[in-house]
């Protein structure tokens, strides 16, 4: 007979072990000095950057090189911005002397001045963003070219290191030779598009790094083919 005075022991269902969340691709950035944080957005050549990532980065893909155009290529718009910055100091007194619109109050002059300096800030900001986001990545798997031509147009191209056939660089001109920046040409196999890293610093070092990556890929290709 069943014992009515003893509660039946209930067998609770086993809790399923909680699945660990997948490890994020983005590694936590180590503590960097304030100076490094300030100069990082201005750097055009970064070897093994630990706190950078890009959109289609694969799980075991690590960035070996991050490249941008040499900062000296920004001189034209920097000079233009400096001219715009100091233009009101020269132009406005002349306009006040000529007085083309005698009834224009000081409020309009204030608005025009503020508007002018905001336009100057916009010119600097847009040109800087164009330089900052036009970036080349060399990873242990691929070569990536991110193009940010204007505010509404962006393009990302990539190719596998194994498909690279030839890498050369060119340094033309006195300024490029003195400051050491040039173009790196990457030829890929077959119908793949070729890549050009324009005006990057230390192009000989870039070619060397890519050559080493190609060698590593060729050495590891037989092992990968055997499934090791």
């Amino acid at each position: 007979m069943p014992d009515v005075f003893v509660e039946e022991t209930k067998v609770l269902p086993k809790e399923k072990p909680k699945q660990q969340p997948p490890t994020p691709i983005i590694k936590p950035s180590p503590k960097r000095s304030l100076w490094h944080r300030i100069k990082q957005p201005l750097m055009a050549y970064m070897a093994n950057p630990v706190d950078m990532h890009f959109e289609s980065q694969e799980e075991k893909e690590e960035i070996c090189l991050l490249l941008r155009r040499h900062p000296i290529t920004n001189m034209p718009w920097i000079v233009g911005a400096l001219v715009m910055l100091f233009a009101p100091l020269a132009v406005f007194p002349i306009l006040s002397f000529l007085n083309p619109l005698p009834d224009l109050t000081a409020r309009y002059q204030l608005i025009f001045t503020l508007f002018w300096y905001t336009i100057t800030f916009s010119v600097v900001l847009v040109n800087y963003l164009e330089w900052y986001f036009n970036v080349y990545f060399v990873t242990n798997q691929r070569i990536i070219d991110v193009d940010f031509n204007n505010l509404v147009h962006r393009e990302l191209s990539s190719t596998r290191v194994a498909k690279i056939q030839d890498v050369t660089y060119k340094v033309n001109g006195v300024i490029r030779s003195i400051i050491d920046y040039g173009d790196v040409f990457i030829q890929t196999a077959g119908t793949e598009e070729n890549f050009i890293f324009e005006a990057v610093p230390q192009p000989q070092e870039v070619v060397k790094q890519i050559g080493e990556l190609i060698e590593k890929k060729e050495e590891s290709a037989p092992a990968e083919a055997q499934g090791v």
Partner: protein
Amino acid sequence: MTFDNTLQNMIGISPFFILKLFILLGLMMYLAFALVVVRQIQLMSNVVGGGGQYGIKLMTLIHLAAILLIFVLALLTL
């Protein structure tokens, strides 16, 4: 007779009102441009991410705030 009075007699509208209208229209378009910049930086930060993103986003927000301030100033004072 002053310049604005002359024009007002000719077209019936104060020229400074027309000037204010054009200034505000221009500032509205500029404001839209600043919003596009903020949005595009958000999108590009997903494409190319890194430690310098916070400073860039701050600059774009300062840019937007400056234009908004000028727009409000023009609306109220002109």
